[in-house]
């Protein structure tokens, strides 16, 4: 069984397609792994084994009938609890949505189901995707499979931890300021934030509409590309989605050639605040890419220094408006409805009880930033900085094909370490935020360990050039895994500290 858990999505899909293994067996193996380790990992908020097995059976039936199967048919997936799926509770990690069962599917849910992907359940996240550790979840904190005393990153820590603990070979997340890439970085998995508008937001509970980007999470670059291909594309139900062909990311991941590519190192990302081991792995990765024929150049993006500040004005502004609808009137939590309290009192009591501290903090900051008399100084200035950051990217991409940096300045910190220090928490997204502000695409791929914990290598490419992420990521991955004799997570699976996962000794 553990051999099915160690296999990647591409391999599993191939074996299901040939009939070597049934989708039911694959799904059952992953459900068993969840049952075995999730008490410790706490990646899932909700698992629906029956539904997953029924979906797997449907794939097996299609195969038996001789139907052609899609490239990911029968492969299990962990879905961040921010996507709506008919009949499955969606909480977005918040108590205020507890009990809400959406009556509709997100566009991405529809695409996954149509592709025969088997959804195992919904994964834990920081409340409304606000955080870098899952400690802001209204329910519980997810643990990093590499070291259970450490955070799995956030907001999509549940999805990343599910991958790293071999509970699922694929996961899906959303990235507003780094919520796919930072968890990928600290769990040794692959996470991609596609170009804004390249993946539909319809049915994705909004945090900050102008930044939110759904994207694929996997254990290999190719698996991420296969999932990217399934979920990307224009959606008439999302006015901000881009009506353009999806770049051939799968071909790029298979091609994995960086010869002649110009790779820019962002000068502003490094130095103070960066863990030495992280900088070391990053430097080694640059050398690997150079060895593969890429040209490494240093690039300055002077306005990236202001990205965090601008982000923490624009994002909360949108949050303050997007989270207004949670008012107890139509769904979710309702507190204080005693027949005496007024509508306003019920709204106040419910929002007071239902939102966690970080959600409240951002609602308050955003409300302030949009207030009459402050709008120009805060929201208005932040939008100008956003434009300057976009111009930095434009200028850089005149000179280089991609930009690179560490994904996050440090490896996984311990649970509780930054919980009471929002600014320290926010700094985890220092390197990932600029791509959200500019709307271009970026990815994190594992590039080794520092002090025994995974380090992520971030690649940033221009809007609609998502294929470049996969070319560079796959090239780096191929070279590093050949040096290591397997993927980074294989090291966890085979190590004593990963013994509890019970997936060792099969490869």
């Amino acid at each position, binding site marked *: 069984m553990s051999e099915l858990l160690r296999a990647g999505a591409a391999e599993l899909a191939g074996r299901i397609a040939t009939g070597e293994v049934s989708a039911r067996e694959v799904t059952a193996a992953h459900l068993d792994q969840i049952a075995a380790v999730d008490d410790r990992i706490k990646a899932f908020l909700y698992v629906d084994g029956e539904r997953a097995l029924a979906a797997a059976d449907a794939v097996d039936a299609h195969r038996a009938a001789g139907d052609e199967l899609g490239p990911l048919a029968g492969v299990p997936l962990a879905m961040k609890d921010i996507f709506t799926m008919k009949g499955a509770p969606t909480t977005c990690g918040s108590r205020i*949505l507890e009990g809400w069962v959406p009556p*509709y599917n*997100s566009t991405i849910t529809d695409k996954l189901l149509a592709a025969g992907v088997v959804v195992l359940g919904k994964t834990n996240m920081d409340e409304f995707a606000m955080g870098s550790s899952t400690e802001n979840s209204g329910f519980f904190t997810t643990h990093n499979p590499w070291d259970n005393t450490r955070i799995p990153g956030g907001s999509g820590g549940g999805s990343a931890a599910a991958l790293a603990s071999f509970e699922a070979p694929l996961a899906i997340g959303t990235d507003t300021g780094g919520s796919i890439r930072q968890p990928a970085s600290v769990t040794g998995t692959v996470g991609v934030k596609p170009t804004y508008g390249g993946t539909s937001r319809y049915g994705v509970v909004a945090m900050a509409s102008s930044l939110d980007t759904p994207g694929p999470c996997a254990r290999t670059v190719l698996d991420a590309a296969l999932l990217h291909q399934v979920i990307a594309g224009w959606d008439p139900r999302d*006015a901000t989605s881009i009506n353009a062909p999806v770049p051939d990311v799968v071909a790029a991941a298979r091609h994995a050639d960086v010869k002649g590519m110009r790779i820019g190192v962002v000068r502003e990302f490094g130095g103070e605040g960066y863990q030495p081991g992280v900088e070391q792995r990053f430097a080694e990765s640059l050398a690997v890419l150079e060895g593969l024929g890429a040209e490494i150049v240093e690039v300055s993006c002077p306005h990236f220094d202001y990205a965090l500040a601008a982000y923490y004005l624009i994002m909360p502004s949108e949050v303050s*408006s997007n989270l207004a*609808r949670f008012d107890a009137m139509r769904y979710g939590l309702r507190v204080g409805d005693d027949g005496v309290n007024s509508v306003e009192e019920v709204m106040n009591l419910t929002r007071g009880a239902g939102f966690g501290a970080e959600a409240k903090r951002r609602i308050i900051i955003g409300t302030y930033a949009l207030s009459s008399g402050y709008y120009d100084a805060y*929201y208005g200035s932040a939008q100008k900085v956003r434009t300057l950051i976009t111009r930095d990217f434009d200028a850089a991409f005149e000179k280089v094909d991609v930009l690179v940096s560490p994904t996050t300045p440090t490896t996984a910190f311990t649970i509780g370490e930054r919980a009471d220090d929002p600014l320290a928490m926010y700094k985890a997204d220092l390197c990932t935020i600029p791509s959200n502000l500019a709307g271009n695409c970026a990815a994190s791929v594992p590039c080794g360990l520092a002090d025994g914990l995974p380090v992520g290598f971030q690649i940033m490419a221009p809007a609609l050039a998502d294929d470049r992420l996969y070319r560079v990521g796959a090239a780096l991955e191929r070279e590093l895994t050949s040096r290591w004799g397997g993927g980074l997570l294989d090291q966890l699976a085979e190590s004593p500290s990963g013994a509890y996962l019970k997936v060792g000794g099969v490869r």
Partner: protein
Amino acid sequence: MSSPVLDFDEALAAFDPVLGLEVHVELNTASKMFCGCSTAFGAEPNTHTCPVCLGLPGSLPVVNAKAIESAIRIGLALNCSIADWCRFARKNYFYPDMTKDFQISQYDEPIAFDGYVDLDVDGETFRIEIERAHMEEDAGKLLHLGGSTGRIGDAEYSLLDYNRAGTPLIEIVTKTIHGTGAKAPQVAKAYVSFLRDLMVSLGVSDARMEQASLRCDANVSIMPKGTTTLGLRTETKNVNSLRSVERALHHEIRRQAAVLSSGGTVQQETRHWHEDGEYTTPGRLKSDAEDYRYFPEPDLVPVAPSREWVEELRATLPELPNLRKLRLQRDWGFTDLELQDVVNAGALDVIEATVAAGASPQAARKWWLTELARRANEAGVELAELAITPAQVAEVQGLVDAGTVNDKLARQVIEGVLAGEGSPAEVVVARNLAVVSDSGELAAAVDRAIAANPDAAARIRDGHVQAAGALIGAVMKEMRGQADAATVRELVLAKLA
């Protein structure tokens, strides 16, 4: 409830009123502003809803292109500039009738701006300057139950119907309107009436005030004559008819004048118009100006109508209703009163078509406002819905003019057409309604009438011409009405006088 008021003439002797009108027009697009749900009026509550107009988590708006087209056409008809590029904005406030607790509207970038309309009120022309016309979505409907007033204050509970949530609205805002003096209420009424007719002629809205598909918020302030500083204004809501627009402003001017004359200050607030008692009561104070925290709607992309498209839409504009009325009145030679009757009866279009088919304007007016108005009223339908076309009405009049039928017979012809018996000419044949023109047959009938009424005949011979009536009546009766009364009269007098 009613506040003290000053006599209107007295008020106007001391103060100049300044108006500002905000009109919301519900567009008649088949689907809502940001989703595919139907906008049909009167459906079962909460049946015309979906994740988008219910504002469910994760749902996203997509702009209805037809609504943009209507907005641009309205803007053009109001002589506005049309934005090259504009955005939607979120207006943030908590209220249960807003499913998202923000309204998608437009703020500092309206689709249409800087326009005007010229209105004629009692022979005096007033230019109303339009500040802006912007797009937004309507809220749901709240029903406050269990109380006596139907307002939230004393309700036991409230019901929500989100069928209306997301219906496209255009809000048209005037600049401040000065210099209307005592005609302020009439000018306001004329303006709203103009907008109503305009929306109908553009075909963009039903513009029915009683169904709230056209709503007016009437702002008014007054300032002492000779001063130039604007007074504090009130915004009167619940003004649900043209008459109410005029009456509410009339009242509000008098009320504010009473406040100022007695040394008080007008509160900047909304006022609620009570149609039945003709007074206003205070609503929400506007001095603690609510901060709606507008910002550009991040779920939507900017609207950038091409100049070519705008020009194409300009070419689709109908003649403005007020100009059309003036033109028709001039062409037809109708008095103001006659034209008003025609407009009130909704007969402008059918009369124009009847005249175009060859009838005289007066004849067309007569048929549509009397016989046909009565028939439509009986059937409970609009004039245009009657089973007779303007061309057929013109044909009936043609038969009268040719002497084929008289007025009384013509009404029977109309009855036949409405009953589906064919064209007017066919009904005349089928019902044998043509007047008898054979003079021999008529002369014989006249002879028989003289013989049967010797007294009347004798009186006529004695010079009492008015006695001819009895003989004419007898002949008409014998001919079952199918004779031309004037011809009969000539024959009677020729034989006896």
